[in-house]
């Protein structure tokens, strides 16, 4: 009867190394992302900042390294209302015409703020693991019993008296047949499916970088430029 037992589904799944199955691809993605973050940081420091190395005054200490943002110059054009004084004429008050002049000023912006750095990194990781265990058992039993009996008998009697004679013949037969068929079909099955979906999304721009960019951008002020 032991052959009829189906496999235990729980037992099948309990032996799976789920940590490795889910964790390994995620770890690879995380390592990749960390590597990309380092590359991105190097890019930001090398491209968007000027590295300033100053030797310490004490002499023996390590050199101080600081980074200053590379600034780019932007132009700002905006219409301003200009009132031109009209001193000619006989009027007592000053009368003037109002006109719109397009004034161009300039402002400086850190180079960092115009690089779309948040478009880098692993944005999506999907791990789909599917395992299906199926177990089935089927048994067919067929039994046929057939009995057949056959019997046959015959007799003949003859008698005579003078010129008369009589003959009697007889026969008897017997047939008997029993048939019995027994059929059994036994089947059982079970199946289980184990599906794991892991989704890891890309976080927005790192808070630290965002803070730096916000500090830079909030400090943007137009400056007057004499043309």
């Amino acid at each position, binding site marked *: 009867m032991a052959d009829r037992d189906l496999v235990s589904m729980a037992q099948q799944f309990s032996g799976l190394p789920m940590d490795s199955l889910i964790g390994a691809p995620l770890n690879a993605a995380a390592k*990749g992302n960390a590597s990309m973050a380092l590359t*991105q940081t190097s890019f930001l420091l090398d491209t968007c900042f000027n590295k300033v190395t100053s030797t310490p005054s004490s002499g023996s200490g390590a050199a101080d390294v600081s980074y200053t943002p*590379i600034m*780019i110059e932007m132009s700002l*054009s*905006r219409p301003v209302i200009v009132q031109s004084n009209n001193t000619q004429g006989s009027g007592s008050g000053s009368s003037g015409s109002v006109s719109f002049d397009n004034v161009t000023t300039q402002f400086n912006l850190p180079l960092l*703020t115009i*690089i779309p750095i948040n478009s*880098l990194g692993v944005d999506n990781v999907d791990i789909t693991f599917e395992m299906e265990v199926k177990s089935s058992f089927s048994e067919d039993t067929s039994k046929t019993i057939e009995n057949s009996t056959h019997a046959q008998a015959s007799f003949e009697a003859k008698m005579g008296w003078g010129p008369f004679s009589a003959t009697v013949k007889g026969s008897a037969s017997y047939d008997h047949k029993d048939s019995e068929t027994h059929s059994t079909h036994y089947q059982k099955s079970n199946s289980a499916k184990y599906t794991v979906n892991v989704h890891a999304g890309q976080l927005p721009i790192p808070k630290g970088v965002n803070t730096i960019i916000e500090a830079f*951008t909030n400090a943007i002020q137009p400056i007057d430029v004499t043309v």
Partner: protein
Amino acid sequence: MQFNINIPCPVCQTQIPADSNLLLTGMQFSCPNCNAAIGLSPKSAPVVENAMNEFEELKKEVATKKNMTNE
């Protein structure tokens, strides 16, 4: 049209949607609030162009790392 950066307007602090590559072409972007237009000064164009080129290289490098991660 999809812009990839936002630059705060120096006049009213409203975010001005802009595109780094289009800034390089000399295009100006208007503030949706005060209509002030901002653009890249020609003298800063080489610096930005260099940075954008390096950024494109970085994106390629990242794409390679992504492919390696997927494999």
